[in-house]
């Protein structure tokens, strides 16, 4: 059974002139790492909001179709249940700080406080997450004094401590420098190793190609492409939809076009590129 399923979902913002998404059908299995790509304004964040139940509960608009979480229709779940089951991390690293906690430890525990988890269990789970995500060095720091990358790591921890079934991460590195980006992806790497179900929206396509198992492309209100990473990220039509290909794929396609040399396959990650290009020299 799919862990998350969207059936015939369409949505139009109240103040919008047109629908943003139409007839979206999507099924995600437990443990999948799905990347969602598309140009700005295509509807990626809207889709994430729908998957998290923020639409229709917190946004004005008309939504048709259903969202199923582990077989249960989201309309039948309470807000608290959704909050626990679907984690969400936003683009802006600094806005996810509650502002009322003085240490990162307490900041992470905040979600458990809201869910009414008994104190002993709260402490145990928070400690466990800190260890798992290797952020012991941040434990006693003040949440408002962290760098962008550190804030995002704490945001991820704060949401994971609630033990959600799915984690949706919306452009977590767009405001970060390379070091911050690396820190965030270190955490994402750990999550991948633990087979967490993850939906990631990202523009940094080279990183997407390294981590995602599956990629979906959103444009013109629909999911236009949906398939394994190495297949989708080497499809040159992506360029027409405002999405770049990984550098090595672009390079390979250019080499084929400009020199007439053919590669056995178009690589999407650098490891594969090394193999393929070695064959040519």
């Amino acid at each position, binding site marked *: 059974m799919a862990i998350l399923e969207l059936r015939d979902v369409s949505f139009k913002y109240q103040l919008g002139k047109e629908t943003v998404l139409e007839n979206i059908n999507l099924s995600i299995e437990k443990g999948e790492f799905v990347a969602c790509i598309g140009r700005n304004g295509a509807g990626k964040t809207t889709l994430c909001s729908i998957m998290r139940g923020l639409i229709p509960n917190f946004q004005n608009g008309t939504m048709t179709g259903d969202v199923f979480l582990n077989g249960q229709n989201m309309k039948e779940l309470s807000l608290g249940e959704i909050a626990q089951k679907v984690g969400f991390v936003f683009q802006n690293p600094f806005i996810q700080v509650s502002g009322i906690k003085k240490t990162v430890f307490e900041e992470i525990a905040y979600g458990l406080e809201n869910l009414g988890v008994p104190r002993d269990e709260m402490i145990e789970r928070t400690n466990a997450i800190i260890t798992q995500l290797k952020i012991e060095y941040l434990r006693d720091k003040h949440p408002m004094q962290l*760098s962008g990358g550190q804030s995002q790591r704490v945001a991820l921890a704060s949401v994971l401590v609630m033990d959600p079934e799915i984690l949706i991460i919306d452009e977590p590195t767009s405001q970060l420098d390379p*070091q911050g980006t690396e820190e965030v992806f270190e955490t994402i790497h750990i999550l991948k190793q633990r087979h967490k179900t993850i939906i990631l929206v990202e523009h940094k396509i080279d990183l997407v190609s390294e981590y995602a198992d599956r990629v979906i492309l959103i444009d013109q209100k629909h999911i236009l492409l949906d398939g394994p990473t190495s297949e989708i990220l080497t499809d040159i039509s992506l360029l027409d939809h405002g999405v770049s290909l990984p550098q090595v794929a672009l*390079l390979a396609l250019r080499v084929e076009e400009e020199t007439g040399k053919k590669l056995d396959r178009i690589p999407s990650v650098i490891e594969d590129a*090394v193999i393929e*290009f070695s064959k040519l020299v």
Partner: protein
Amino acid sequence: MEAIRLEHVTFTYDNGFVAVEDVSMTINQGEKVAIIGQNGAGKTTTVKMMNGLLRPKEGKIFVNEEDISKKTTASVSRHVGYVFQNPGDQIFNQSVYDEIAYTLRYFKKPKEFIDERVRIAAEMCELSDVLDVNPYDLPFSIRKFITIAAVIALDVEIVIFDEPTAGQDLFGLERQKRIIETLHKQGKTIITITHDMEFVIDNFERIIVMANKNVVADSSRHLLFWDFPMLERASLKQPVVAQLANRLGWDGSVVTMEDFIQTLCQRGK
């Protein structure tokens, strides 16, 4: 003529923290320069001193060969335009037209003059179709271009871009590239702070690297990205194409895809 010159500039915050130490650089009129480096290296501080937003504790700054220590920030800004990273800090007018025209109206320029300038700037930023729209009805990435247009409308000689690629998709990056090329052809001096190595290689020949409050390198992209000790010091990675060439055992100066293809043909079977 020199556009910007920094002479032994040091900047200290009120709390005593030194952000930039003994930095010197000269950028000539019409040059395109990228300034790269880790967060905390001092890039933004350095660049904010170029238009007077921040004032150095020591050292001198010259814009168009004039010392700016006695000038107000606003007066320097008439020669040095600054495009902020977050457009939300700047935009407040009801329409894209008003936003672009704002400063010109503040200076009471004649209507035809303003109209002309707005039209040109909007065209360069591909905003001609949305001049009547409220900026907040447009997506974030388009708002970025509104702030760029506002700076272009002032016809400044020097333009500073602060992280222009953050949050942009492919179309946005291509639009930025076209704008930079047009400005360059017009003879403007362009300075960019960015983290996007591929964007840097695509658009800039001269690169200045900052690390730990100083300048650690100032040279061309071909030399820079194979200087491993320097890259290590500045905590920078090679761009992907260079990494690939490195892994294939090719020696050093492949940086762009053109370089790669050329070398491949030379070495090919």
